[in-house]
């Protein structure tokens, strides 16, 4: 039985093969999975906000796209992953509530996905697949066997990216 590792909100985990990493109920948050296909070392971070600089207190680095991805990468490298081999898949960044009022300007989901892509670009990590946006929640699961990412939704079924 392969160990299933839960990643909570504002949380990150890295693991050696064999493992399955999962995070449940992504809304406007973004789940970022990093995978080294050679060593099969896998990592996942569940970020809530785009940038650590907007917050006054930022003790939990896994909460933000900028610091969370950097920390996850470092943890995977310390487990023996090769920096050059690592590829990414991302999911989430939905807008759960549609407001007709003035609060509409704050689409944190879209800002989270944009920031995530920007950070990965700066780190030179290619994004192999993504499933972002929309207005629905997602549960994701990555297998260290092949780096396949399962995206599960309530209204749109299950897909693999």
């Amino acid at each position: 039985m392969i160990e299933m590792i839960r990643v909570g909100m504002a949380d990150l985990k890295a693991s050696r093969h064999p493992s399955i990493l999962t995070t449940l109920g992504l809304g406007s948050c973004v789940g970022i999975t990093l995978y080294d296909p050679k060593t099969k070392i896998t990592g996942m971070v569940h970020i809530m906000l785009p940038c650590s600089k907007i917050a006054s207190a930022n003790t939990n680095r896994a909460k933000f796209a900028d610091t969370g991805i950097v920390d996850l990468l470092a943890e995977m490298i310390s487990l023996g992953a090769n920096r050059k081999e690592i590829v990414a898949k991302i999911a989430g960044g939905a807008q759960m509530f549609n407001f007709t009022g003035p609060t509409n300007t704050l689409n944190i989901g879209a800002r989270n996905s944009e920031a995530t892509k920007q950070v990965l670009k700066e780190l030179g990590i290619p994004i192999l697949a993504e499933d972002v946006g929309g207005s629905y929640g997602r549960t994701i699961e990555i297998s260290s066997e092949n780096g396949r990412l399962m995206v599960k939704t309530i209204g749109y079924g299950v897909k693999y990216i």
Partner: protein
Amino acid sequence: MKSDIDLNNINSFHLDVLKEIGNIGAGNAATALAKLLNKRIDMKVPQIRVMKFSEVSDVLGGAESEVVGILLGVTGDITGNIVFVLDLLSARRLVNILFGKHIDEETEFGSLETSALQEVGNILAGAYLSSLSNLTNLRIMSNIPGIAIDMAGAILSVPAVEFGKNSDTVLYIENEFTYGNNSVVGDFFLVPDEASYIRLLNALGVA
């Protein structure tokens, strides 16, 4: 505002005060719901939860359970979010009562049903907040409600994200309503931001 209150180390006295805030707010909301449905509504003693973000998705019977969430932004002297969450069965029962159908009739959530639920959320949240406002003498208003039918974790992450800008834990004041044998279980989550939470305690003279 200078205060020695730390959300990560909240004491039991402050928790009791917050619980009482939740109790009074929910009492008013329950009365509003009872009037709306013309049924007797009971409520449970509210739960106060101070949670780490990583624990948020475990509330409400699991992150993946499908629920109806009605979310309103709170503005005025305190800011934050108020979310009214119903499981699917309860939401359907509520709609059936409102529309004079048999309580367990299979009803799809079309635009009419969702807007009815949205309005119920609006009325209940309004009752909740106005009693808070009376109690604290603070000006508290709510924005237009938004509704989502989806995974509990995804819905509750929305107020958590709002809260997350300045804090690593989230404070939920959770209320539960039931009525008769045909229970409608609805949870209220009041999620003030950290400054507002201190302001609430200050207004009650306990900070």
